[in-house]
């Protein structure tokens, strides 16, 4: 307990950064992933091919490599300069979006084709058929896998410690510099992660209950 209380500054900064990373990367991944999923089911072959290529390339690359690219490779390209925190957010978003996209796509596949036909038959154009009828039902069907993706994202934020973002995964090394027992520090970090994931699971159960679609 002393390890936690005497170094609360480290823990607070660490988990604050973790939550900031999680929050922004989560939102961007959700938006990007949904767009990529709809491209994968689009009637236009070029769009399907582009989405499939993106998913296969990024999802098959280890997260560490994706993050190192944004930390070390990206600055050399001479584009807009970004700090490490932004780089980590972009990397995590692009990586997580591939998993979101596959979850959403499997959700789209659970929606009976008649739903889209009925939407088109009352005169809804393609985008509205998707946003008003297909996607709301697809999301409801994939809450469990979607939350697995977000729980993985929460934990993946620690990988960002590898390149100077002081989030929760960096707490341990900072603690050892202060001469605290490494084991105690690690256990506290783990415990707080378990608590955070517990909160996510609670939200998941609530949503599953609220959004149950009966057929």
């Amino acid at each position, binding site marked *: 307990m002393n390890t936690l209380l005497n170094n609360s500054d480290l823990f607070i900064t660490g988990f604050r950064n973790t939550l900031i990373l999680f929050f922004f990367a989560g939102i961007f991944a959700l938006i990007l992933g949904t767009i990529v999923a709809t491209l994968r089911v689009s009637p236009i072959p070029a769009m399907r091919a582009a989405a499939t290529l993106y998913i296969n390339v990024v999802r098959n690359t280890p997260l560490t490599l994706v993050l190192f690219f944004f930390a070390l490779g990206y600055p050399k390209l001479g584009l807009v300069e970004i700090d490490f925190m932004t780089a980590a957010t972009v990397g995590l978003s692009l990586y997580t979006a591939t998993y979101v996209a596959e979850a959403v796509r499997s959700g789209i596949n659970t929606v009976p084709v008649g739903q889209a036909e009925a939407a*088109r*038959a009352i005169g809804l154009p393609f985008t509205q058929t998707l946003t008003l*009828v297909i996607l709301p*039902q697809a999301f409801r069907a994939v809450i469990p896998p979607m939350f697995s993706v977000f729980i993985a994202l929460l934990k993946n934020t620690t990988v960002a410690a590898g390149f100077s973002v002081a989030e929760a995964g960096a707490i341990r090394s900072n603690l050892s510099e202060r001469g605290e027992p490494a084991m105690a520090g690690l256990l506290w970090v783990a415990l707080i992660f378990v608590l955070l994931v517990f909160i996510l699971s609670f939200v998941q159960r609530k949503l599953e209950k609220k959004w149950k679609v*009966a057929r």
Partner: protein
Amino acid sequence: MTIQAASDALVSLNGVNKHYGQLHVLKDINLQVKKGEVVVVIGPSGSGKSTLCRAINRLETIDTGEISIDGKKLPEEGKELALLRADVGMVFQSFNLFAHKTILENVTLGPIKVKKLDKATADKDAMALLERVGVGQQAPKMPAQLSGGQQQRVAIARALAMKPKVMLFDEPTSALDPEMINEVLDVMVQLAKEGMTMIVVTHEMGFARKAADRVVFMADGQIVEDAKPEEFFTNPQSNRAKDFLSKLLTH
């Protein structure tokens, strides 16, 4: 078919052909439906009658030929097609109510999003339609809470909410329990009496006798007969139709 007759048709199919791979499902179909006419399409399974019905609002594409609605040729995919579909009501065999929306929302979605009606007006119109098909009480419920017959009547109300020029029914009672068939047919008979233009694919010969102006008999992708109901049922011309009707009457 003279040019005069073709031009006053509300729904007009000319030389329509469609293949599924090797299978020739629609063979040179010519069909004109006038305003206010009720046309019942019957025939054995696999005769192409559902495909014909779905081709009219382009849920199925066709290979050759031309389909027009109220003098306008069916457009390719896109905004124009969506607008034209709003004028063609469709009722499906499996109801296809939007599972995540209430009964009322199912009926108001089209008027609000496509016709840009304000919510209050759309709600009022929708309630009137739901009352008319006898499911006003069910408005706040979800589709899965209703019986099949009730769901199908909601589906009819949803189509009517767009104030369509023509209504297509694709085997509307085939997925229903026997005791629910009549509540749906009653609504359809009423609709026919009110002068709605209807194209109905069905196995309900009773409905054909009662409400149809014309019966179109299809077999193997072709229109084999096109006659008044009493003419068709009492004196079918083709062997194919005689055979079909005799099979119906043995039970």
